[in-house]
């Protein structure tokens, strides 16, 4: 199937990736080609087939409810773009 400019703009918002007007045309063509490739799937008969999300069909393993991690806030925040008083800084959300 083809993908419209509106679709691309909507998906870019969902993915939180800014897409310039100039890039939309190239994406329209690239994503359209990818979706054409993917459209081969519609030929497969999957009427009685369940989806496979994991090759081993494993179940979530559980562990004892014990604290195993130590507090490494300083190490983690040392690599952050902006922190203050142990908090991560982002532009003001509430005026």
């Amino acid at each position, binding site marked *: 199937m083809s993908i419209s400019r509106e679709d*691309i703009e909507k998906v870019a918002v969902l*993915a939180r990736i800014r897409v310039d007007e100039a890039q939309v045309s190239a994406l329209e063509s690239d994503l359209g080609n990818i979706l054409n490739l993917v459209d081969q799937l519609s030929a*497969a008969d999957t009427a009685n087939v369940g989806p*496979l999300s994991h090759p081993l069909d*494993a179940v979530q393993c559980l562990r004892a409810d014990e604290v195993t991690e130590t507090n490494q806030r300083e190490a983690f925040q040392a*690599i952050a773009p902006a922190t203050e008083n142990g908090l991560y800084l*982002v532009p003001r959300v509430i005026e």
Partner: protein
Amino acid sequence: MHNKSVAELSRDLESGSVSSVELTREFLNRIKTEDAKYNSFITLTEDEAMADAKAADELRAAGKANVWTGVPFAHKDIFCTNGVTTTCGSKMLANFVPPYDATVTANFRAAGAVCLGKTNMDEFAMGSSNESSFFGPVTNPWGLSNGEKRVPGGSSGGSAAALAARLVPAATATDTGGSIRQPAALCGITGLKPTYGRVSRHGMIAFASSLDQGGSMARTAEDNALMLNVMAGFDPKDATSVDRAVPDYTATLNEPLKGLRVGLPKEYFSDQLSPVMEQQVRNAVAEYEKLGATVKEISLPHANLAVAAYYVIAPAEASANLSRFDGVRYGYRCEDPKDLNDLYTRTRAEGFGDEVKRRILVGTFALSAGYFDAYFLKAQKVRRLIQQDFINAFKEVDMLMSPVSPSPAFLQGIEHSDPVTMYLEDIFTIAVNLAGVPAMSVPAGFVDGLPVGLQIIGNYFGEARLLNAAHQFQQVTDWHQTLPQ
């Protein structure tokens, strides 16, 4: 010295004919003088390597060495290394210094191996040519003597090129749709993608979590066995790693192959494969017949749908995994964001390269309301059909053999026009990841002076038998020892 295998270097260290400090210095010097031609490394960790080598020599002097103690190797720059920049080939992580080790990293550290640095790769492991790296393309050592700059394959192109150029004797790698096997084939080295769940993914930067699997690259099957001995095993930090005993993968390398049942999937010997490539693969299969294997044609009826299913599932999982890169906690952040949305959207627009953005957008589309059933659910159903093909095949045969790639290493720059052309590079490798079975690429000949790989696909957790089959092949062939000029 740099032409020796891990097994040989390990014996030299044991006999005392060379020290780890000498070995490490030699490989570091080779990288520093040679790698400008290949760009196979993103980061060289010279100081850490020399310190580790010294510590390894001391351990050995104290009688506490194992087979890996003091042996140099490199990590694909997707494995987190505590205190050492880990970029995943992206501008987004160009400044990222992880505060912890991946489990694979920790395993090699515990074994006493000496990491020389971090190898180049396609950005976030998305690519088949190593041209999408933020740190520039990697050049394949093969073909360079003719003045041709060819791709090493991808995404583990740096690890593969460094091995082919004899800059390292072993390197880690990862494989989501062929990223170990295809570069191994294009660079003439030996690579193994283990069964999904065999090697921990903890600290291995995620691309598509139900497909990603860490594995090994070296020049011989024996060295791959030595690597898997270190890498494999259950890890409580990875919920999808499998709690199952790890055999000594070197113990069965010399088992005879008499009676081995080999299947040739007819879908992989189609007109997408050039006749000269096919001839090399068939010659390799003939060697297996001489070693006692029986060969028959089999069918993987849904193989032709694998690329389509993959290009829904992998981008969908990637779009979720890569949502963590938001410019808040680590990695790249855009300049002067005017509000929170601007921070997210501009950080991600500036930090990700084109191919990564394409895949995030495709994945977001496939998961979005109104398209989920038609794309994502449909692809997961086809995935089960593909897995069933392999389950059925392994009722009849022990192993499958096929080409790895439709052609040998192609020239840099030529495949850029349309992403789909590049995706078809992986038509013979992708189904393996969807099914989760293990597979290897083994050097099996040359076309126009460029290496050709034989793909050997095994049943779930059949790594020991795969390595055995590859090792026996390497006892009667010397393709894996041929050097680029």
